[in-house]
């Protein structure tokens, strides 16, 4: 089974427990360092590592990530991520709720790509319980998840700009994301945690106003992207800050289980929408952007290009939207899938999002495991940052595009 290998891909040596006990850095908290100094009186002029505690509250750790960084001057010697500040036991709590009730939890995991997070769980339950979803629902799922991808990348672009000091880009990214949030508000009432994609279809059918909003947005998007390229991409300071910075090879990326735009930036056109086509993706014509340097700049370019490709998919799906139901007509209130397990993986904005679900025949799943892209992508951070400056740490961390809710779950 492919899912077995998939789960093993996550580097097991990065569990947070191990970090707490084995990490040499976290043991050396500043208070203890004085004792070490006192023990060796001859070391008056000894060079020592400068330990910097970045986070959990820090302007650019994108949430509550804590990094313990060993510095020599400005150069990073080591970097230890310390996770778990946003751990909300979503996997465990999913095991004590009925199948439909799991969906809203996933909103809170990857809160910038909620549509995709909903979708994975919905498909897992549908596969377990063998529910056939109407085609119109599949189209709507594709439309909203691609729009969500655009929103997520816009937000990422802004946050990355702010990370390297271009604060204006931040506001620009938010400005266009706002339009997408308006669309989502129109169809499901929410702007952040949608719960729109549900088991058996979607929550509501789209309205003519949604259709109009989407088309208007897709009309202005190319011009806006052009603006961003003029503002950011052509800027020499931006190029100096990102080109070659935090570069990883394809082998390293694969061995750490890195997926999504980070993997595409390393030269591998790995995208589950093409590799393992799900839903109605085979019907659409789109490309997978690939760049080959694996650095921050290429990650930026991949995401900028992905927005264009997503826009292509959305317009094709909107034009070819079939008539019919938007959800399964009669769905049991308490789904009881037959005994068995399933692993569903999809291409979320941040990379490969997997849901493993095991049913024991009751109304609640026996085991739920989420394979979230942010966690796997973050695992390569210690490798990427060594040898770079403290200013690059922020740029590299930004280029990973983590959502801490997605990392800690």
């Amino acid at each position, binding site marked *: 089974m492919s899912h077995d290998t998939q789960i093993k891909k996550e580097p097991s040596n990065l569990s947070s427990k191990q970090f707490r006990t084995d990490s040499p850095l976290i043991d050396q908290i500043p208070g203890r360092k004085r004792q070490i100094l006192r023990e060796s009186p001859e070391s008056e002029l000894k060079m020592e590592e*400068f*330990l*910097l*505690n970045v986070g959990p509250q*820090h*302007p*650019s750790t994108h949430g509550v990530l804590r990094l313990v960084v060993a*510095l020599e*001057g*400005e150069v990073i010697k080591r970097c230890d991520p310390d996770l778990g500040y946003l751990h909300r036991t979503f996997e465990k709590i999913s095991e004590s709720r009925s199948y439909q009730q799991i969906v809203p939890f996933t909103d809170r995991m990857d809160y910038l790509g909620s549509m995709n997070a909903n979708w994975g769980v919905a498909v897992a339950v549908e596969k377990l319980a063998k529910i056939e979803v109407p085609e119109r629902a599949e189209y709507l799922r594709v439309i909203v998840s691609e729009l969500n991808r655009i929103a997520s990348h816009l937000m990422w672009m802004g946050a990355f*700009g*702010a*990370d*390297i*000091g*271009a*604060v*204006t880009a*931040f*506001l*620009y990214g938010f*400005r266009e994301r706002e339009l997408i949030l308006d669309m989502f508000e129109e169809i499901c009432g929410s702007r952040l945690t949608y719960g729109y994609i549900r088991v058996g279809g979607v929550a509501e059918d789209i309205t003519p106003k949604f259709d109009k909003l989407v088309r208007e947005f897709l009309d202005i998007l190319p011009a806006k992207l052009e603006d961003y390229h003029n*503002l*950011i991409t052509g*800027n020499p*300071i*931006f190029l*100096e*800050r990102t080109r070659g910075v935090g570069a990883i090879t394809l082998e390293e990326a694969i061995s750490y289980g890195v997926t999504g735009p980070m993997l595409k930036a390393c030269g591998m056109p790995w995208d589950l929408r093409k590799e393992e086509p799900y839903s109605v993706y085979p019907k659409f014509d789109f490309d997978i952007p690939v760049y080959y340097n694996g650095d921050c700049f290429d990650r930026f370019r991949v995401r900028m290009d992905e927005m264009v490709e997503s826009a292509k998919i959305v317009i094709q799906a909107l034009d070819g939207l079939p008539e019919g139901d938007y959800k399964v007509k009669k769905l049991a209130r308490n789904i009881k899938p037959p005994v068995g397990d399933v692993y569903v993986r999809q291409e979320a904005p941040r990379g490969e999002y997997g849901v493993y679900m095991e049913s024991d025949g009751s109304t609640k799943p026996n085991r739920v495991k989420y394979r979230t892209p942010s966690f796997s992508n973050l695992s390569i951070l210690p490798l990427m940052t060594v040898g770079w*400056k*403290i*200013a*690059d*740490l*922020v740029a590299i961390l930004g280029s990973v595009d983590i959502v801490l809710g997605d990392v800690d779950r």
Partner: protein
Amino acid sequence: MEILLFGIIGVVVLFSVIALNALILVYMERKVSAWMQSRLGPNRVGPFGLFQTTADIVKLILKENIRNDQSDKVIYFLAPILAFVAPFAAFVTVPIANTIGIRDLDMGAVYIFALGSSVIFSIIWAGYGSNSRYALIGAMRSAAQMVSYEVPMITAVLGVFLIAGSLSMREIVTMQANQTWFIVYQPLGFILFLIAGTAEANRAPFDLPEAESELVAGFHTEYTGLKFAFFFLGEYAAMLVSCCLIVLLFLGGWLVPFVDNSIIPAWIHITVFMIKVYLMIFLMMWFRWTFPRMRVDHLMGFGWKVLLPLAFINLVATGAVVLILK
């Protein structure tokens, strides 16, 4: 006695003018950034949010002063004072019209540069004294940054002194009245000085000592209340000094272009001077809200490998031309 009285009046006038300007600048920065980022900016306190900065300062004054337990007391308290006093004192020799200025020194330019550089001390003191790692990195960067841009800055401006044959601000402007604005003779020097002046005022893209996204607030991470307000106002005062220098040295100071300036009343000169200064300030704000921040090693490479050779070329070329024309 007379000198003392003159001094006191001068200090009071200078302080109110600079404090007022700093308040206006903070408001302007927020409005300009809002305009560039398609936001509204402050609009609640007073008409068009004009009193927002005043309200902020009052809030900062009322705030509790928190001091890091293991901080170096003396240095910690002196740093914000110097941060504001140094640019403030530099204004003594800045003339805003032909006859209006606190005092015109023969060595005016040297005096301003010396005080401008001493702002760095306040940053290093703040970083060292507050016993915080982020602050220390900010201070370290600031020291490295100073040596890399101060040298090209002075070298770039030497061309102006060569042409003017004087270090007095008033005489430099008078020379520009007799000939033409020095930006015409010294375009390269102007660009170099603009870049270095932005760095001098610690403004983005050279705001490395306080790089928000990396160092939280850099050297003033541990400062609260009034002491923070001093750093804040000091930064804007420093920007004001930088822009005044640029206007005086390159853009003809208070001179109105294409007109015989001897018949123009002083209030027009003052207005023209302020307009020029505020245009330069707007330019600096434009930089800040457009460019990403430079990395510290790139900045030093830029300072030593690009700015300094260009400044030397400019200096040698200017010197040769001045010598030939003599």
